[in-house]
C-alpha cells in the first residue's frame, strides 16, 4: 500500500470504519512508515480538538441558562394544540415576509401579489379538509384578500421536489388562465407587493405533518423562489 492510498483510508481507520482486512493492511503500513504514523496522530489530535470546539458553544449555552428558556418555549408550544396548516402557513409567510419583500421594492405597492395556496391533490387529498381553515387564516392575516378563484380545470403538476432549485416543473404564470393562477384544487389571491407568484403547499409523503411550501414570486424582471418545510 502506498502512502497516498493510505492517506485516503486513514480517517476511516481512525474511526474504526474499515473492514478487518483493510485495517490490517493499514496497520502493516503504519508499522513501517513513520510519516503515516505521524499523520494518524495528527488526525486524532484534530478530531479531539474539533469535538471540543464544536461542543463548546453548547456548554456556554448551558452556563447561560439557555436550555431553561428552550424548555419553557418548547413546553408551551407542545402544550398548545398543534397549529393547523393554515396557521402554520400564515406564520411562515409572516416570518419571512420582510426577507421576501426586500428584493421587491416598495414602489410596487400598487401591484398585485397573487398567492396561490394550492393543495396538491395529485399526491393525495391529505390537506383538503383543511381548505376552509386555510382560507380563514389567510383572510385574517394577509389582508386584503380577494375571493378565491378556482380554475375549472385543475392542472395536474408532475414535479418532484429534490435538489436546491425550484424545479422547472413548477407551473409558471404563463401557463395559466386570465385569472392568472391555477392550483390543483384551491386557489387564493392576495394583494401584496409583488406582481404575481405562486405559493404551493405540497404534501411530503415522508413527513405528512411537515408539508413543503414552494414559492415562486415575480416582480418585473425579478424572481424569487425557494422551498422549505413548515
Amino acid at each position, binding site marked *: 500500500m502506498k502512502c497516498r492510498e493510505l492517506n*485516503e483510508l486513514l*480517517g*476511516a481507520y481512525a*474511526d474504526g*470504519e474499515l473492514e478487518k482486512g483493510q485495517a490490517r493492511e493499514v496497520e502493516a503500513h503504519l508499522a513501517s512508515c513513520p510519516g503515516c504514523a505521524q499523520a494518524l*496522530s*495528527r*488526525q*486524532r*489530535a*484534530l*478530531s*479531539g*480538538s*474539533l*469535538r*471540543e*470546539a*464544536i*461542543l*463548546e*458553544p*453548547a*456548554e*456556554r*449555552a*448551558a452556563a*447561560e441558562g*439557555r*436550555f431553561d*428558556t*428552550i*424548555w419553557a*418555549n*418548547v*413546553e408551551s*408550544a*407542545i*402544550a398548545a394544540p*398543534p397549529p393547523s396548516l393554515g396557521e402554520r402557513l400564515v406564520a411562515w409567510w409572516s416570518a*419571512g415576509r*420582510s*426577507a*421576501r419583500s*426586500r*428584493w421587491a421594492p416598495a414602489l410596487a405597492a400598487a401591484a398585485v401579489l397573487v398567492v396561490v395556496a394550492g393543495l396538491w391533490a395529485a399526491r393525495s387529498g391529505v390537506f383538503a379538509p383543511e381548505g376552509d381553515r386555510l382560507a380563514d387564516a389567510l383572510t385574517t392575516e394577509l389582508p386584503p384578500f380577494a375571493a378565491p378563484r378556482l380554475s375549472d380545470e385543475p392542472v395536474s403538476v408532475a414535479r418532484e421536489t429534490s435538489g436546491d432549485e425550484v424545479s422547472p416543473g413548477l407551473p409558471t404564470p404563463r401557463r395559466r388562465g386570465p385569472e392568472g393562477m391555477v392550483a390543483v384544487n384551491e386557489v387564493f389571491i392576495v394583494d401584496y407587493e409583488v406582481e404575481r407568484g405562486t405559493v404551493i403547499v405540497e404534501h411530503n409523503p415522508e*413527513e*405528512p*405533518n*411537515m408539508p413543503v411550501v414552494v414559492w415562486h414570486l415575480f416582480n418585473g424582471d425579478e424572481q*424569487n423562489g*425557494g422551498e*422549505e*418545510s413548515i
Partner: protein
Amino acid sequence: MGLDDNKLVERCRRGDHTAFRALMERYQRKVFALSYGMVHNSEDAQEMVQEAFIKAYRNLDRFQGNSSFYTWLYRISINACIDFLRREKKGRGNVDYDDQIGHHERVNESDFPLVSSAGVDNPGRSQSRRELGEQIRRAIAALSEKHRQVILLREVEGMAYGEIAETLGVAKGTVMSRLHHARQNLQAALGPYVERGASAGESDGERS
C-alpha cells in the same frame, strides 16, 4: 441511566411531557452544538433547537423506531437549519458570527479560500483554548455545507458512518469521502494550531 429512547418516545406519544423533557435533556446539548455549527450564533441556534424539538414532538407518531431516535432527531435539526439558512440567505445574504475573532472578515460560506477565511495567519502567537476553539469553528464554517454536516455529525455524536449516511440520506461511501475531504481542508487550515494544541495537551499519550 433512565429509560431507553424508545421507551421515552412511547411515553411521549401518550402525552407525557416529562418523558419528552428527559429526551430533550439527553440530546439538547448535541442538537445545540450541531445547530450552532450550522448557523454560527447562539440566538439562532437556540431558535433551531426549539424548532427541532417541537417538530420532533409533533411528529413522534412518524418515528418508526427502525432507526435510532437521535438520527431521526438530528435529521430534523439539520433540515431546520438548512431551511433557516436558505431563508436568511435570501433576506440578508450573510450570516452573523458570535465568535469574537474576525468580525470584520465574514466568511461567505463556500467561496473563500479556506486558509485566509479561517484567519490562520499567525500560528506563532499564543492561543488561549477559547481562541483555538473559535479558529476551529471558523474553519468549520468555511467548509461547504455538505462537508460541514458530516464533520458535525461525526464529531458531535461520534456517529458511525452508516448512521450518518442514514441521517443525511446518502451512501456510506459518500460519507467516507466527504469526511476525508472535510478533514483535509480542516487540517490545511488548522494544522499548525492543532499540532501545538496536541503537543501541549496530550503529552500523556494518545487518546483512542
